[in-house]
């Protein structure tokens, strides 16, 4: 019996579960304009996973990268939920570098 995939599935569940937390908190304190940086970091982690020889390290880095890429597409809806009062709204968000340029881009949503 090969438990690698099963255990990886359980670990990925925790990674995805933590995604709920950092998307909600991240949007609250930093705002949706950070999405390109989160997506970029996620993609870097996935590329980085190609160069790790250890299967667990590669898999965890890849799953974490995927969670970051997915989470970056969830920022837009989360910001609307906060505007609606479904989650606490924070006026004083920490703006990212090049916020004025990122504002002109359409935030991704899947």
């Amino acid at each position, binding site marked *: *019996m*090969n*438990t*690698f*995939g*099963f*255990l*990886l*599935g*359980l670990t*990925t*569940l925790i*990674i*995805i579960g933590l995604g709920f937390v950092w998307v909600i908190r991240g949007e609250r304190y930093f705002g*949706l304009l950070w999405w390109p940086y989160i997506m970029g970091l996620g993609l870097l982690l*996935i590329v*980085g*996973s*190609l*160069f*790790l*020889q250890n*299967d667990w390290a*590669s*898999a*965890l*880095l*890849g*799953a974490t*990268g*995927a*969670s970051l*890429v*997915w989470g970056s597409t969830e920022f*837009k*809806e989360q*910001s*609307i*939920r*906060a*505007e*609606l*009062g*479904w989650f606490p*709204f924070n006026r004083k968000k920490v703006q990212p570098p090049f916020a004025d340029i990122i504002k002109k881009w359409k*935030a991704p949503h*899947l």
Partner: protein
Amino acid sequence: MEINFVGITAALAAFLGIWLGHVSVRVIERNAKILWPPILIAIILGMAFEAFSLATSNRLLSAATGILGITILWDALEFIRQENRVKKGHAPANPSNPRHARILAEHPYATTLDLLNRDPIGQQVSTEDAVQLITDY
């Protein structure tokens, strides 16, 4: 140096599993007259993926099916969570679905409006403004 494809396999499985689950749960919950059949199918399908993951010696297949199986099992729970979102008005109810029609009659916050179907404006909105924003979008 050898390229290790386990990570990118895990990444693709996780991303596709989350994305397909996200879309399927919303569409199925919106249209299903009763919820227990899709929940049961998700549980059986998820467990089948996990069983395959345990049985295969191929580490890439094991990783992919292990992750996909878990996301499908989570989707079984998400059907119930999605129905609760509809009851709270956090997801639009489908008036042509008798189950959702009952929800609309019994839950005062349930709505057919998709209050998330717009771009963010950067400030808090009242319920009236929220409706106006999606109407204008």
